[in-house]
């Protein structure tokens, strides 16, 4: 297991470190590209959690969809100007950000505190799940499972989300469209 664990630590480190870079860099482009790294690292973590389908979806939709969208938006909204805005602040952690930093840090402390209080590995339901063999084994083919669930138990959200996407599509198209339709 050490390999898996090691991988976990590596992935976690990459994810967190890149996220910190994303958060702190003053260069928007770098920040966006660093976000790629974070997402990839997260996908790796998903794999480690035996959720390969989610990991793939993550890469396809996030990296392939969202980030590209963001880049497009970035380009469309005039790169130079935006960069100029981004570079206005030189300092790494300015005084202005101190409250934000403090807030985030306090949140972190509180959350970590909570996590240790919960003792996630010894939760009742996890023990029960392990006992009932309801946990996913590394060799299981979860994709099929997901497929079946998607068509039965989770049919409603599946259908609903199509409408959501449609709405989003219409709306985004409407907003992005310039001027009169004709």
């Amino acid at each position, binding site marked *: *297991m050490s390999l*898996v664990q090691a991988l976990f630590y590596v992935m976690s480190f990459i*994810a*967190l470190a890149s*996220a910190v870079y994303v*958060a702190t860099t003053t260069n*928007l482009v770098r920040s*966006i590209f660093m976000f790629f790294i974070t997402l990839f690292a*997260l996908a790796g*973590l*998903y794999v480690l*959690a*035996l*959720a390969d*389908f*989610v990991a793939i979806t993550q890469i396809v*939709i*996030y990296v392939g969809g*969202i980030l590209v*969208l*963001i880049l*497009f*938006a970035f380009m469309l*909204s*005039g790169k130079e*100007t*935006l960069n100029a*805005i981004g570079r*206005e*602040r030189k300092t790494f952690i300015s005084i*202005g*950000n101190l409250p*934000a930093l403090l*807030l*985030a840090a306090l949140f972190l402390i509180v959350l970590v505190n909570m*996590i240790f209080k*919960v*003792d*996630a*590995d010894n939760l009742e*339901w*996890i023990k029960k*799940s392990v006992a009932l063999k*309801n*946990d*996913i084994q590394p060799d*299981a083919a*979860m994709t099929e*499972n*997901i497929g079946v*669930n998607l068509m039965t*138990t989770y049919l409603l*959200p599946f259908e609903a*989300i199509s409408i*959501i996407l449609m709405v*989003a*599509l219409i*709306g*985004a198209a409407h*907003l992005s469209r310039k001027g009169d339709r004709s």
Partner: protein
Amino acid sequence: MISLTGYMVVSAGLFCIGLYMIVSKHNAIQILIGIELMLNAAILNLVAFGRYDRFNNGGQMFALYAIVLAAATTAVALAIILNVYRQYKTIDPGKIDELKD
């Protein structure tokens, strides 16, 4: 096995980084990225615990929906940000404050 606590800590870390971003960044796109980080923190949680939910697959399914919804939200948000840029020539939310008390 990887400890679930580990996942949770990583997720908490991501969440807080995202949180930091949404309140400190001066660029709407970066704020959006911050939100994505927070979403990913949640998804990480879901996925990690979804491992113990083989039949219902709740965690993983939720993660999938969350990713798709994030995409939809992002698309809408970006469209709006684009419009804002057209109107204000800036996307610093701190500078867009015509509506206030």
